């Protein structure tokens, strides 16, 4: 018995060893190192001197950092709630369709989600091209002239948010569809017998029953969009990046462009704290959902 117990531990060790090795080396260790690095003035590669809280003090006076925090929040605001609302609306209309028609329509909404960000960037860069972009024929009548949306600061974030919603909404749509499918037909039939109007059915039945999925979508999107980098970086290429900066981009900018690893790590720690704080909230929410 004792031998088989020892054997079990040995087998377990063999099974978890590769995972623990990778996790320790590329996850736990860099997390600890990131915090250590944030107290130094090290370049990207090489050692630096310990400078205490200097980097953190700098955060509070750094204008570009403030812009990055603001832009990230603005981007979250522009994508999370509008994106989730659009996803719910699409899921509601798609769920009415059946069989082949539903798969086809759903594929149209979901396909962008599986594409690489650079493909999305190239497509929308073309659609909005100042000279030849087809969307300028929508913008021009309204604005009176073509607008270079990637170079005009007020246009930048909303346009990137629009592209992001187009790109990533398939995920939320799928979650909502699953949620809608779980609502029993009997409830709808009963409501119909009672003569409930369509609006009433939505607000009195669907909305409260779909609420847990809505919360799930909102929190997943929130944490995802706080880590925004790819689209903003690509669309701002060649532009005034200091004004369209977001947090992850600022880590990249400080560490890789300005070779200031220490300060880059400090920005990373601040992002880390923000994301962990929101994740704890999400985790509490999920746990509450699981216990019910």
């Amino acid at each position, binding site marked *: 018995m004792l031998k088989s117990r020892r054997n079990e531990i040995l087998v377990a060790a063999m099974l978890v060893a590769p995972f623990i090795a990778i996790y320790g080396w590329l996850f736990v260790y860099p997390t600890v190192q*990131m915090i250590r690095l944030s107290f130094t003035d090290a370049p990207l590669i090489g050692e630096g001197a310990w400078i205490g809280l200097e980097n953190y003090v700098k955060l509070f006076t750094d204008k570009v950092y403030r812009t990055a925090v603001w832009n990230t929040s603005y981007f979250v605001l522009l994508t999370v709630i509008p994106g989730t609302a659009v996803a719910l609306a699409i899921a509601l209309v798609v769920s009415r369709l059946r069989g082949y028609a539903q798969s086809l329509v759903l594929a149209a909404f979901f396909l962008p989600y599986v594409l690489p960000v650079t493909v999305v960037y190239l497509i929308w860069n073309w659609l909005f091209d100042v000279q030849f972009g087809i969307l300028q024929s929508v913008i021009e009548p309204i604005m009176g002239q073509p607008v270079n949306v990637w170079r005009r600061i007020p246009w930048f974030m909303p346009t990137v948010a629009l592209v992001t919603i187009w790109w990533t909404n398939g995920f939320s749509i799928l979650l909502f569809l699953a949620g809608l499918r779980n609502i029993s037909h009997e409830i709808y039939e009963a409501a119909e017998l009672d003569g409930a109007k369509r609006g009433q059915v939505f607000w009195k039945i669907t909305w409260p029953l779909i609420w847990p999925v809505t919360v799930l979508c909102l929190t997943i999107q929130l944490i995802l969009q706080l880590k925004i980098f790819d689209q903003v970086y690509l669309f701002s290429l060649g532009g005034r990046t200091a004004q369209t900066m977001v947090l992850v981009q600022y880590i990249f900018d400080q560490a890789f462009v300005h070779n200031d690893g220490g300060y880059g790590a400090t920005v990373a720690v601040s992002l880390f704290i923000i994301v962990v704080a929101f994740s704890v909230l999400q985790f509490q929410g999920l746990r509450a959902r699981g216990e019910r």
Partner: protein
Amino acid sequence: MTATTAEVSAGEGRTLRFFDVGSVLLTILTVICALIWFFPLYWALITSIKPEDEVVRPFSGLIPENPTLNGYIYVITHSNIGIWYLNSTITALSITFLVVLMGICCGYAISQLRFPGRMALWWIILASFMIPVPALIVNHFIIIAGVKLLNTHLGIILPQLIAPVTVIVYKQFFDSVPRDFREAAVMDGANEFQLLFRIFLPMNWGVTTALAIITFIGAWNAFLWPFLATKTEDMMTVTVGITEVQDTFGVAYARVLAGAVMAGLPVALVYLIFQRRVTQAIMLSAGIKG
């Protein structure tokens, strides 16, 4: 009594008729929305098979007048897209294989075996969900540079192996395998590895396929890390490389979009072929058991 029945059926008739007109309108609206949503992809596809002079002509049509594959031929002959494809395939398949294998092994150990530190490991994995990987780029770069793996396939692969979701999903699925299966197999003298690869894994083939597909799509699409880890064009993945196509080609949208179509095609096809599995994988990763 008769009056009530008549009233109910009249009411039903009314809602039915109302539903018909409303339904048809709503369905048409849905289809229009789907077409609008799909339009950017269609437009990219169409642009990629137009000659360059037709692309920049005002009011260029929805159907190309002189379809041509010149854009594709140009990208294939004037860029490293073949090598990028190879790099993407090597890295994405390696990441998929390793992530799924580690998920299987670790998930099985946590679910079925009793060993010291088991719960601690489980909590660490759950907690690691919260850690934003993009925040670690600086230190990933330092680590990978330290072992001289920058600009290599292994260097691109390593930091992408962090996937707590896979372990969590497998642990949950292995938990739900009835205890009897295990006991019967142990009676027959099966060891743990046989149990895992002969019984537990085949029982969850669907999960494995779903996770493998979504991991592959994620690895193929990864941008930030492969972008940082590659220095030379011949080590880039397709996802990173096609932005180079734009830099070198200038305003030549047919070529640029031909590159984009080629980069997106593998993942789009994977999705269209395995639509159901992708849906399942999304549900699994969001914590909804499908």
